């Protein structure tokens, strides 16, 4: 009974092992920081990708509790950074769009802290995993990477689609605009030429005689 109780409560103890993935909008000239408390020795991975906006680039910066910069990249479209926490404390990572004057960006990031909690935490496990169980574990890991690739593919597709829709709108507006400008310019040319010759009312000299 106690074992069952512990079994049910165990996941709560693993609350600090988690993965956070968020997609947020970063306005122009803005900086957004996220913080996480990490214990020493935990392996962490930060992955980010710019989904929409401008040249699809963002500045990213990761600092440890002492303020030491662990990772700093300017105008990056996509990157993945793995590190091991060298000390306990609050780690901070920031995305900056301060170099952009009017384009706001959509940024996706995935911050994985530690490994996934065991599915069935068994404190007094004496035997190794059976073949079936280890097969399940490897399938699970493979599927996790499939989901990860799928996410990145989805983001790239969103990026491509956003560019295509932009292009479509631009083609429409510029075509209409250009046709209009064409008509305006040709009519003004004619009117202007007419105005040159209208002044000379008295002189009707033949040109090229």
């Amino acid at each position, binding site marked *: 009974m106690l074992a069952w109780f512990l079994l049910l*409560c165990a996941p709560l103890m693993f609350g600090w092992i988690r993965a956070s993935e968020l997609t947020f909008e970063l306005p122009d000239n803005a900086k957004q920081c996220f913080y996480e408390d990490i214990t020493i020795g935990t392996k962490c991975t930060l992955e980010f990708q710019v989904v929409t906006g401008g040249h699809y680039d963002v500045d990213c910066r990761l600092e440890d509790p002492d303020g030491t910069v662990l990772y700093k990249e300017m105008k990056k479209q996509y990157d993945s950074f793995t590190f091991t926490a060298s000390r306990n404390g609050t780690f901070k990572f920031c995305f900056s769009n301060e170099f952009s004057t009017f384009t706001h960006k959509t940024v996706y990031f995935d911050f994985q802290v530690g490994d996934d909690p065991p599915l*069935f935490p068994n404190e007094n496990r004496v035997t190794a995993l059976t073949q079936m169980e280890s097969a399940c574990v490897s399938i699970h890991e493979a599927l996790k990477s499939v989901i990860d690739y799928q996410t990145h593919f989805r983001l790239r597709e969103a990026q491509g689609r956003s560019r295509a829709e932009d292009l479509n709108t631009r083609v429409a507006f510029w075509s209409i605009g250009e046709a209009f400008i064409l008509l305006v310019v040709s009519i003004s040319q004619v009117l202007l030429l007419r105005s040159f010759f209208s002044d000379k009312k008295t002189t009707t000299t033949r040109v090229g005689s």
Partner: protein
Amino acid sequence: MEMKAVVSSTGLMLLFAWLSPSQALYFHIGETEKKCFIEEIPDETMVIGRYRTQLWDKQAGSFLPSTPGLGMHVEIKDPDAKIILSRQYGSDGRFTFTSHTPGEHQICLHSNSTKMALFAGGKLRVHLDIQVGEHTNNYPEIAAKDKLTELQLRVRQLLDQVEQIQKEQNYQRYREERFRMTSESTNQRVLWWSIAQTFILIITGIWQMRHLKSFFEAKKLV
């Protein structure tokens, strides 16, 4: 003896339960600042969001552990910009929704506390955790409810994962179709507008020459 173990483990469990939300990712927001997060998900996908807020205490120079009376307004919009959830929660909240249309859902949070005096520091710390799809499943709970063995639970997890992949692939097919339609529309527009503009150019050129010729003839210059 067992009672003691149960009590001590309950205490331990409660301690960790209290600690665990504070270990989530957090960020700072201003007084009436609205923070929005986008989740692009297929349909019939469950999303669970949990947040916890902490207020900056100017006197203590640190964040208060919890502030009753502080509320956050959560607004969730579906891909058609229709609001599917708009509720006020307390300083700690949990919201959940299931998508009925595939696409970009927007989850917006902002605090609208009426007690302006609370915002002496103007900074609010929000711990946020959003779980999507198969991550929302609580496997130990499922195991206990359906009385599954370890192997059965693992297989159940694999089934859930595969189902999520399948949904996402299906959604991908729909998105690719939209992308293709947009590209084809662009292609058509470029084609027709090029022809139309060339036509306009030739017509205006001919009109210009004819008009000017008749003008000069009238002015007896030609």
